[in-house]
């Protein structure tokens, strides 16, 4: 998971950038995942040549296919974002094209057991959709958390969408006069990412500990 987050740590200096990045991630993940499953069903249907071999198919290697799909959807997201939000697109720069890499990493990591057991086609599609959406959501939560911390402490503001009378930027009084700019450097991103990962591990450990403690109490 952390490997997928690494390039994204660079764009979490402003909350708005993190939001756009998460949106792009969700877009590419969901569409890649969906079309992968659908293509799989169409091309690798039982009875057709090459069924049963995991690495075969029209596109040769399956990961070559995912690569191709992710690149396509990333490129389309880049074009869409450039049309609707040119400033944010410019702010994100190279990291929008790099979404493809993140998506491939996440797809690769998500390639697990649940898909194998399911035979029914519709269920497979829904499962893929759900998996992609949840991964996109988790990515968004992580990115937005990091960006809120970094932007609040690093520049004393929280930049969001302008909406009606709201100009789009919340100024955190007290910090905005002398923010800790070091957090806006790439190192600050990794620092926040590290602490977030630590918190997640801590939460996991606490969750594991509680039922066990309850069970021991019950045994006694």
């Amino acid at each position: 998971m952390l490997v997928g987050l690494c390039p994204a740590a660079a764009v979490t200096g402003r909350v708005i950038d993190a939001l756009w990045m998460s949106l792009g991630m969700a877009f590419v993940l969901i569409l890649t995942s969906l079309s992968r499953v659908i293509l799989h069903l169409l091309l690798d249907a039982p009875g057709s040549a090459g069924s049963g071999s995991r690495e075969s198919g029209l596109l040769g290697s399956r990961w070559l296919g995912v690569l191709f799909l992710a690149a396509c959807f990333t490129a389309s997201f880049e074009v869409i974002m450039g049309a609707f939000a040119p400033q944010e697109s410019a702010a994100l720069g190279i990291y929008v094209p790099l979404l493809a890499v993140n998506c491939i990493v996440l797809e690769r990591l998500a390639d697990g057991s649940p898909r194998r057991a399911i035979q029914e086609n519709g269920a497979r599609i829904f499962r893929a959709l759900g998996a992609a959406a949840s991964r996109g959501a988790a990515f968004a939560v992580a990115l937005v958390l990091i960006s809120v911390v970094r932007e609040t402490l690093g520049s004393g503001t929280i930049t969001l969408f302008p909406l009606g009378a709201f100009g789009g930027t919340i100024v955190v009084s007290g910090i905005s006069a002398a923010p800790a700019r070091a957090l806006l450097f790439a190192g600050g991103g990794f620092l926040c990412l590290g602490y977030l990962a630590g918190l997640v591990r801590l939460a996991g450990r606490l969750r594991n500990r509680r039922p066990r403690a309850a069970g021991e109490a019950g045994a006694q």
Partner: protein
Amino acid sequence: MADSTPLTVSPAPHVGGLISSARLNWSLALSLLPASAWGVFLFGFPALQVLAVAAATALVADAAASLAWGRAVLRDGSAAVTGLLIGMLMPPAVPLYVPAAASAFGIIVVKQSFGGLGRNWMNPALGGVVFALFSWADAATRWLPARGTPAGTAAAPLAALRSALAGGAQPTGGVLSALGARGYPWSSLDGRVVSWVNVHVLSAVGLSLPGGVFDLLVGNIPGRIGDVSVPLLMLGAAFLLARRVIRWQVPVAYLASFLVAAQVFGGLPMGRGWFAGAALFQLFCGSVVLGAFFMATDPVTSPLTRGGRVAYGICLGLLTFLLRYFGTPGFGVPLAILLGNCISPLLDKIARPRAASPRKAVVQ
């Protein structure tokens, strides 16, 4: 407890650790006192405030972080020394949140997050200072004038030299004459002492000293609280060396390589050619001496082997030279030592002594 038992059982590496952590830290604090006291004398109450805030924040942050991580709260003074060093690396007129943030960052992020005392791969004091320098660059250059100089004119000599060079004027003569020609405010006492020496001592030999020599030697210059007085820092360092709290290899290699590099190449950026670098001027301003004796020698983040320490010192000297001449002003020594911290395990690996027992014989 450890002192009363005749045998100490401990895991490797067994490097002459006859000094307990507490004793080491209190020796360090003691050796830093003269130079910090000089800073307080020179800059007055603001300097004392900065030192106190830095040390107090470090102590509180260390205790809080130790509790949060479930470690024992150490009372060996290591956090106090970290805080004191951070305060000494701050300019006297800095807003108080800067030393506080630097101490908190150094202790919580650089030290405790990586496993607490002895496991930090980076010097906590320097990590905190660099964080603060990057974050509040303008606040970290608020100097106070030295004693006997007009108020409101304070600029550290290094920064003044830089701006003098940026003006495009080629300094003729020494660096001090160049500064003097630009109207750098040396103290009135300096003027009296230097002219007395020139008239009564040096005129017989046909030499004369430029203004500022006395101020630089004594440390009566604007600068960071703890780094202005080189003689008092040397005094503290001599105490540490005599008590074998620090080893000589790192500071000697550091200062030697820095001085050689500064003398040989230092004149080039000023357009004065080779071997014209005014190395002694460079030694007396900025925090090279403070860094070389008190921070580069940190036993946790410097190499363990003797050869490694020499190589480490040489790297630090060259890095300091490069960063001071070509980097952002004020970052030279802190960044150089942090970069050195990064390579210090590597240096240990390269300079590892051969195993004492010949393995072949054992195998046969």
